[in-house]
């Protein structure tokens, strides 16, 4: 691989996974994919990505939450943006949106995005994250 920045994409829908890969690559990044939260966690530790995009509902309806929580506890994970994507934000009956402070602090993701991911949004959110991080330094 070249010196392109690596983004980890985790989704159990192989079609969506492949599409995201193509689009993110097209935007100039290099992409590593994983089809389950376990695989995602292993790849995360191995490649130490520049950003993570995690599907919310995988093996369980909240697998993405748990994975993002784990990543954000990791020393490297604390320094990178982690995004959750879901098609059920605001869904009736099931609560997946992080509304209370408690939920936000628990979830730890930097943003929850709607599916399908709009790549331009994703890229600008990644840039924003790093600009803010630089400003703090």
């Amino acid at each position, binding site marked *: 691989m070249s010196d392109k920045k690596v983004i980890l994409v985790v989704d*159990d*829908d*192989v*079609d*969506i996974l492949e*599409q995201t890969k*193509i*689009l993110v690559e*097209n935007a100039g990044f290099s992409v590593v994919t994983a*089809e*389950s939260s376990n695989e995602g966690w292993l790849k995360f530790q191995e490649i130490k990505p520049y950003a993570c995009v995690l599907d919310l*509902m*995988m*093996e369980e309806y909240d697998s993405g939450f748990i994975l993002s929580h784990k990543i954000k506890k990791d020393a490297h994970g604390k320094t990178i943006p982690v995004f959750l994507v879901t*098609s*059920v934000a605001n*869904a*009736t*009956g*099931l609560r997946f949106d992080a509304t209370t402070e408690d939920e936000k602090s628990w979830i730890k993701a930097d943003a929850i995005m709607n*599916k*399908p991911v709009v790549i331009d949004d994703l890229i600008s959110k990644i840039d924003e994250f790093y600009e803010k991080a630089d400003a703090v330094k």
Partner: protein
Amino acid sequence: MNTDIKILIVDDEDNLRTAVKKILQMEGYTVSTAENGTKGISIGSSDDFDVVLIDLKMPDISGMEVLARLRQVKPNTSYYIATAYASYETAVEAIKLGAEGYILKPFTPDELLHDIRKGIEKRRLIIEAEELKREREANLLELAFERSRLNTVIKSITEGVLVVNKDREAVYFNPAFIKLLKADELELARNVSDVLPYPIYEMIDNMLNDSSSEIKTQSDEFKTDADGDLYVEVSVSPILGNDHSMDGVVLVVNNITTYKQIELLKNQFISMVSHELKAPVAATLGFLEILTNPSIILPETQQIEYLTRASARLKSLIEMVNDLLDISRSELNTVRREIRPVIVQKVIEEVLLLFENEAAKRNIAVEIKYEENIPLINVDPNEIERLLTNLVSNAIKYNKNDGKVLISVHKSAKYVEISVEDTGIGMKPGEKEKLFNEFYRAKNEFTKTISGTGLGLSIVKRILDYYQGYVNVESEYGKGTRFIIYLPYIDEHNTNQH
């Protein structure tokens, strides 16, 4: 006239007792006397006196104690303390203990009579007020047909009922009302504003304030438990008098908790369905966007692959919609069944024909084993075919290449048992539990490349429920799975008798 009025004198001084007794008897009062405190208490509590005059200083017990003890049993009597030793403290204490006043010795007959009359008047007022209250309650009760049959009926219904008059006072209510609204403090003639939850009181108040000529019943739903366990529907209707003016309102309270719970389940189901429908649409759209994106150039083989994958997703979407329609039909009970005696083996053979190709492609051997004398079952053949199709489809889909499927039919005491056994990927114990839930699909390394909607087994379950049958699952991860279907069969004995 005055003989109706009873007065008691408690004093240890004989002269004074006789003198006072004479004065009062001349006025026509009925007078009793007690020569010490102990007797004063026993006489005073054995009759209803209008006025009791008590000497402060007596050899056995003090006048204050006599007063205190008598007040406890006869609160409506007027008491006077008589003493020669007037002091501010004793006066205050006497009043505190409930004495009407304080008579300073020595006194003139006029002074005595003045105080006695005041005491009599005071007692009359108290008793009148009490009688008025009792009468009023009796009226209210009558208005609310206490003692009538209707009352018994309303008391026994599960709906809560409350009647409120124009003054916002409770005129009638039944036990269910107290229970549903947890209004333990509610009592007759009490203003309901501080007993009912404010929004419910507001409904009552608004209606009573409404001066328009046509007032309609108002209904609303409320949660009555802080922890949200109980939902009620409250309807308020006007009670119109003969002159068409409003006499009050009646509230009817219904427990709608079960209905609310079903509504919640329904909403959850809808949100789950939306999610499941969105996934294939999003995947298809994603492929189309990539294929039409001018900045992404793909080799032709890959373009064709993506188009193929997109149409596979759409096909699965159609299957899912068909399954959902099936489910909704069975929920709405609009399934048109043609129930008749069916030979299970025949249906199995028909179903297997559908899967011949697929099984051959993956070199899966399908074997059938029937016992003799399998009885007929009374079912809609289409429904049983759908049930078996789902099971056989799974046995092949979740099998390994070169695997095996064994279908056997067995007769037990009550059921025809159909077993569909495979040598496939099996399931983990946790996965087995959720199998029959709508949209549940086990997610493990074997299943990720196998497509499906997760509705097949939930349909199997629904069909079995309808025929009072059931299903058992045995499975070992990586080894294989066995579904056993139990369907009640036609009992020859019974059918012959009819």
